[in-house]
């Protein structure tokens, strides 16, 4: 990617982010009721979007070749286990990441 393309990409992300933050204030005056469908999406969309994000992170994992996605599966298991146990976001993230780094650097080389 050229520098101009990078700037355009980052610009598109800034624009998208700002749109999601400013739109409600532009569209819905504070004295009117929010449409029911928007309220509904607000409740159910987050869970679906975070699932999509996890799949997005793992999109390049090949189950049939190399390490067969084992380092990813094990490390996600560690994140989930740590988080169910202590429920401390930073600990779960750090623990899972260190586990993954050790696995791909020392075990599944």
């Amino acid at each position: 990617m050229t520098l101009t393309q990078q700037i355009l990409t980052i610009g598109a992300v800034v624009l998208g982010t700002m749109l999601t933050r400013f739109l409600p204030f532009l569209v819905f005056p504070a004295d009117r009721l929010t449409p029911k469908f928007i309220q509904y999406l607000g409740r159910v969309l987050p869970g679906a979007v975070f699932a999509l994000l996890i799949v997005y992170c793992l999109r390049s994992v090949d189950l049939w070749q190399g390490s067969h996605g084992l380092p990813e599966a094990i490390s996600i298991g560690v994140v989930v286990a740590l988080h169910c146990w202590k429920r401390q976001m930073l600990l779960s993230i750090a623990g899972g990441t260190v586990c993954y780094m050790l696995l791909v650097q020392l075990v599944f080389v």
Partner: protein
Amino acid sequence: MNHLPAPAGQGRKMAAFRAALPYTLPIFAGFWFLGLTYGVYMQASGFSFWYPMLMSLTIFAGSMEFVTVNLLLGAFNPLQAFAMTLMINARHLFYGLAMLDQYKGTGWKKFYLIFGMCDESFSINCTAQVPPGVDRGWFMFFVTLLNHFYWFFGSTLGGIFGSFLRFDTTGLDFVMTAMFVVIFLEQWWKDKSHEGALIGLGVSLVCLAAFGADGFIIPSMLGILLLLTAARPRLERKEGGA
């Protein structure tokens, strides 16, 4: 604690700053860790510290900035970048809806409050009890500003010192996966019905298998919106009955 009326001018700002600071300390710890990691990750992906520095200032949406690294490494496609941002940050729409009233009457600060409305700033500003005698507008302003600063400083430092790192950073990018797994879990525990999460997971996996790693995002987004819309009568009944 004294309950004096709000002092004027500089004193009023100082009081709001002092009230806001303790609320942001947990975010301080989190943002330094994640910001540093983000900066190091960008450095390891071949970008100089200018990238995390400027991106943390202008985007200020943690998860999206991690995704942007991938976007910058992939093929040039600003439209997909824009669409992905809308989808990933769609939750901000609902933060905005919740803050419509709270941000009212804050003058010019309102623009910055909306600009800097990341998950953490929203959570504090939405739930914090502003001490009596403290100006609410300035309180929320400093919460947002401090969080923005922690993130900016962490990512810039990570970007600068990433180049001096002697250890092997292979696999560091997993921090993003781990973060989304944690956020997904938190959301899972919060949701009464898990159908939304399962629809998201199912549709994404099917689309990944059907369209491949480079083209599955937009079909997934459309599929998720479609299925959530179709499931609305049943899901709303479930919510009501729970």
